[in-house]
């Protein structure tokens, strides 16, 4: 076997002969192109998912802002209603006080006497 390998040139010639090209087969290029296409689809998918995610985030943020505005409005309306009720109560008490005062005076005038010192009112 080594008869022809007595010098490096012969070994190099044998190496060149042994190391000729090997073809991966007809389907190799289509398989590469399919992987490229799959890779393009994979990179497009996250981009679409990213767009959906950012729209969702935007929608969520808008909902939070709207909800807090509505809550603020609802609370302001309730405060205003409370103030109105208090005003009405005070007014009712004032009117009642006046009516009682008038009634008291009328009773005292009919009896002809001066009003007692301690009316209790």
């Amino acid at each position: 076997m080594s008869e022809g390998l007595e010098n490096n040139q012969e070994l190099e010639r044998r190496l060149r002969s042994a190391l000729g090209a090997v073809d991966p087969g007809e389907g190799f290029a289509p398989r590469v192109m399919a992987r490229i296409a799959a890779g393009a689809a994979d990179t497009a998918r996250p981009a679409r998912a990213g767009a959906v995610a950012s729209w969702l985030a935007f929608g969520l943020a808008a909902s939070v802002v709207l909800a807090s505005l509505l809550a603020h409005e609802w609370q302001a309306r309730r405060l205003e209603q409370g103030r109105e009720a208090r005003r009405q109560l005070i007014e009712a008490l004032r009117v009642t006080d006046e009516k009682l005062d008038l009634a008291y005076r009328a009773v005292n005038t009919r009896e002809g006497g001066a009003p007692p010192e301690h009316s209790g009112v």
Partner: protein
Amino acid sequence: MSGDEECARGDLLTQALAGERAAFAALVRRHQRSVYSMALRMLSDRHAAEDLAQEVFLQLFRNLSAVSSEAHLGFWLRKVTMHRAIDRLRRAPRLEGAAEELAAAVSEAEPADPLLERRLLALLRELPAAARAVVLLRYQEDLDPVEIARTLRMPLNTVKSHLRRSLAQLRERLDGTADALT
């Protein structure tokens, strides 16, 4: 290579750079034998070689704008293939193919001495990854030591040393085989 052929190759690269998939597929077909052969002789496994070769072309597709000419493309493919193969062997050093894998790695051309060439390929697999890469680039890709040094980013003296030692080792082992047979 004739001037027209060189021009056509340049056109193909230009078309691929412009985004034409068909032109890129033609580039793959043109270089697949070289890339696959390097991967197969480095990894000694058909499936791993196919996977590595595909990855090299995927990387080329993503980085095609960095390739300036057909000559640069050849250099780029050899560099990436060898570096990827050496990395893979570092991660899985026992990636050894079976006997049938060795048969698959034998050149398609009718060998003058099939037994000797099979034996040479088997001995080649026993070389360390860096030395094997140097031998493949020298005798499969027909690069000179300066080009090998550039491709593998290795000092020129290291390339020469790998070549000298690898040839001596191959010769010695081949002689040993011959002595055992006689």
